[in-house]
């Protein structure tokens, strides 16, 4: 088998923020999914939740491929991060603007992955937006600064390929211009 260049991206974020949806939207191959039916309050938002990981791939042309990993959102599954952590090109953090407390979800995710994501290029993507989110965007940026994280904060629709393409461009830009 040829060994072409691959880049690994991992999606993190609160349960229901849209990690699996993102990967489903852009993957060129059928997504490897490990969702099971929810047994807790999350069931009021959606039927299934990821308990191991999502895996998808996207061709970048020239034989280069992006490998996409979606992790579970709940902190009890933090160990799954270690199974994908090697040679990460970037981390995409999704923030669910439609949730009752988007910043709490963000804080919890940051606590969960504290010490794991600081060294990797990082993009925060606010998802499921309705109306103006300038204030939320500023609060997200402020929260990230407080946790010592630097990275762009953008607004996306996780179901759109174009938005995912923007996320990937930003991750690679960050990688190019970061001095870490």
């Amino acid at each position, binding site marked *: 088998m040829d060994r072409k260049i691959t880049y690994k991206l991992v999606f993190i974020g*609160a*349960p*229901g923020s849209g990690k699996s949806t993102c990967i489903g939207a852009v993957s060129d191959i059928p997504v*490897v*999914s*490990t*969702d*099971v*039916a*929810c*047994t*807790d*309050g*999350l*069931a*009021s938002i959606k039927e299934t*939740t990821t*308990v*191991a990981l999502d895996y998808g791939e996207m061709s970048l042309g020239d034989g280069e491929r992006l490998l996409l990993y979606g992790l*579970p959102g*709940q*902190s*009890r*599954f933090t*160990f*799954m991060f270690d199974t994908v952590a090697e040679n990460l090109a970037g981390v995409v953090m999704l923030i669910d603007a439609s949730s009752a407390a988007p910043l*709490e979800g963000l804080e*919890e995710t940051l606590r969960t992955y504290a010490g794991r994501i600081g060294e990797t290029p990082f993009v925060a993507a606010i998802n499921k937006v309705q109306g103006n989110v300038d204030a939320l965007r500023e609060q997200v940026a402020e929260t990230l600064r407080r946790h010592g994280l630097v990275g762009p904060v953008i607004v996306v629709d996780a179901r759109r390929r174009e938005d995912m393409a923007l996320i990937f461009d930003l991750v690679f830009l960050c990688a190019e211009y970061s001095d870490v």
Partner: protein
Amino acid sequence: MSDRQKHIPVLLPTPDRRQCEMALDELVARNVDGISLALLAYRDGHPYLFRGKELQNAGKLAAMASSMAALSGTMLREIDSDSGEMTLLQGKKGKIIIVQVPAANNLMLLAVHTTEEVNLGLLLAHTKSCVTKVAASFGAAQAGQP
């Protein structure tokens, strides 16, 4: 949904806790030397009940059991549109077996750990018998597949 919140099953059938405790006790305490731990967990990784060896973090083990079971199922489906029923991990110092409880749409999983001296057939037989008791505790009306 924070992990710090207590797990409250929503509109889901529940097993009889007492009967589950008895089934796990029998497996770990009385029946077989070398079975060090039995853990009953929800399919999405919430712990329900465990017996045996002191666990620092039953929650983490429950989550790991659900991840492993889901990955096994995903791999079986990939090859033969089969579904996962049992996952077996063989280490140098022991084995872990993770089995679906065939009740209430596979709501729960049982994970059992043994030390190396326990033979696989014995482990399977005892695990199966425990799972059958747990499944029966959901009540005949709710029992799922055989």
